[in-house]
């Protein structure tokens, strides 16, 4: 019964995440950017834009310029999350790829980075008056949710252990529509339920910053306004009418 419920939850969460994200990405893609508005100085070539964007995605370059403390905690969290997500790949592939085996211990330490990063961000959100002023309850709660996911995961990896063999067969089963039993371990179940919840709220919350960055005209446009005429369809239509 529990396995069925969790399975259903993950199917629903996955569908909402996939549908919501695809819908948002299509919306961003289909909404025209009628004017050239890269924040200057900007790259003058497409290759330059890829380089600029890579620095933003990998190193959070702009955030580094603006606030070293926020950058440190934010980058630690995201880098830790990245390592941890790679580590979790082992639950979804069989046999496990070589490099995923190699990074297993790093993924484990990734959770420590996540914990430090999230704790720092939460403290900052409460302590710094400017950041407290701009925070809605959801801004705090998302950090709390991520902290709970991190700590339940760490509890299992570092202290309690979990029946990872069963977890893996459950998820492999989920992917092949052949539901297997999930261990009725309360820490594991709460970890999974919270992850599913995170997937559900992703496309309907500020977590949209992840796809948003790639569509940000101030970062992804080439500085070539004088060389190449840039015009949106609705603007061209406007020219015909007046």
């Amino acid at each position, binding site marked *: 019964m529990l396995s069925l419920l969790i399975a259903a939850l993950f199917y629903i969460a996955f569908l909402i995440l996939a549908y919501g994200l695809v819908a948002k990405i299509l919306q961003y893609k289909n909404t*025209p950017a009628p004017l050239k508005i890269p924040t200057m100085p900007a790259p003058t070539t497409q290759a330059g834009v890829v380089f600029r964007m890579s620095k933003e995605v990998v190193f959070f370059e702009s955030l580094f310029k603006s606030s070293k403390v926020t950058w440190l905690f934010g980058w630690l969290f995201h880098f830790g999350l990245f390592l941890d997500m790679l580590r979790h790949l082992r639950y979804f592939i069989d046999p496990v790829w070589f490099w995923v085996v190699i990074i297993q211990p790093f993924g484990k330490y990734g959770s420590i980075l996540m914990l430090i990063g999230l704790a720092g961000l939460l403290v900052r959100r409460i302590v710094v008056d400017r950041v407290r002023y701009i925070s809605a309850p959801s801004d705090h709660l998302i950090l709390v949710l991520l902290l709970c996911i991190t700590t339940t995961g760490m509890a299992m990896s570092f202290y309690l252990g979990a029946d990872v063999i069963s977890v893996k067969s459950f998820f492999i089963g989920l992917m092949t529509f052949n539901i297997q039993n999930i261990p009725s371990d309360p820490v594991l179940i709460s970890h999974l339920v919270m992850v599913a919840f995170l997937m559900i709220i992703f496309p309907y919350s500020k977590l949209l910053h992840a796809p948003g960055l790639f569509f*940000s*005209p101030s970062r992804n446009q080439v500085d070539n306004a004088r060389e190449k005429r840039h015009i949106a369809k609705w603007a061209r239509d406007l020219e015909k009418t007046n």
Partner: protein
Amino acid sequence: MADNKFDTPQLREYPIIPKLKKGVMSHSKPFIAKEPHQEPLGFPGELVDDWENVAIKKMADLQGKYRSLQVYLDSCVKCGACTDKCHYYVGTTDPKNMPVARQDLYRKVYRRYFTFAGKYFPKLVGATDLTKEVLDDWYSYFHQCSQCRRCSVYCPYGIDTAEISMAAREVMDTIGVGQKYCNEIISKVHKIGNNLGLPGPALEDTLEGLEEDVEEETGVAVKYPLDVKGAEVLLVTPSADFFAEPHVDGLIGYGKVFHEAGISWTVSSHASEAANFGMFIGSYDNMRKLAVRIREAAIELGVKRIVFGECGHAWRVAYSFLNTLAGPWDFLDPNYPVPQHICEVTYGLIQENKLKFDKSLNDDMVLTYHDSCNVARASRMGDKAGGQFLIPREIIKATCNNFYDMSSDTIKEGTFCCGGGGGLLTDDLMELRVKGALPRMEALRRVVEEKGVTHMAAICAICKSQFSKVFPYYDFTMDQIVSVHQLVSNAIILTGQNDENDEENHPQEDIDEAA
């Protein structure tokens, strides 16, 4: 100085991030546009019935037209990176002048009407209905943003508050709540061709006067032509350049450069304004109509090139938008970018050794340079990224012996707005303008004390007007702001020039509208 109804902020020795003081600028509101200033722009003359629904519909329309708006509304994570980056926050300490908080005035309405979370859990995500109080906040605080883009430099996603401010102003215009200063000026350009409403004959008089002055001073017959068909260059410059100090000294400089280089040029009475206030109010339609005047003038006069004078937001519209709004420019000489900045022209000539200078003629000044926000962060000069920083400085160094930059976090892409950009250069916002100038005043004070700087050069009509006005509040004098081409004008040695180099004197005038 002046009859302050407010306190000029103290210059701080070590700029630290100020503590919040809620609501201290909520009284700041520009005059509302009346019907005669709204209708020529296609906006209703007063608050329409059912304004809430009209506004929400306009928001939906804009989200569908501008990817920037849609992405920026969704993507902010409230990290706080921008919170201390706005000069209006630094100068006023009002939390709603933090870029993210300013955006949130719009975003909270967006969330309420357009997102799942805001529709069903408004308190959780800070979503609110569009009420009269919210609209009042919009009117107040979206007219405390100079669209300078400093926040967008520091945002991890490049979120640009200017885009949100423009959208908010367009929504407000659509429901009949326009700003008098901007909309009155735009209606003047639609009718007459420039922000000041100077008709052709007045321009002609002014330009003839300049010719006489320059000839008297130098002995060389430098021309300042108007509506000359077949000229090579159409010069489009802010109308402030036609009569106010220090702007006009810049115009004199452009003329001397063209003369010395043997480039024929003309001003157009039809397109006698470089500034495009259509951008300030976020109206693509109005911005385009103003830009098209330049196209019409270029065709009418049969010019081969278009050159823009010293003007910040104008250069943004020119460099980044003109090709979009009024292009293609395939009828102009393909050997030159369209449009060019006067600084690009002068710098090119300096590189080719076509201009001679006596730098000592500027020895009475020690210069620093204020990067105008929209030149720095919204446009470029030359063929390499960052040319907008290099080229004006190289011109200053070629014409002056004494030049020092202000501290590195206040120049180039990190430059602070003068405090009067984006449609705020109006006397009804004087408190905001004085307070918003604080970060620049602090940086200037430091180079004055440490390097003995006496003058600050700029290439923007708004900056020049704003600094002339706010300098006295900070114990500077209004003549300490100069045009870059004023320095060129002072130092250039014209062929056949007589020896004396007396400075000409123009009356200091107040020309806030001339931006």
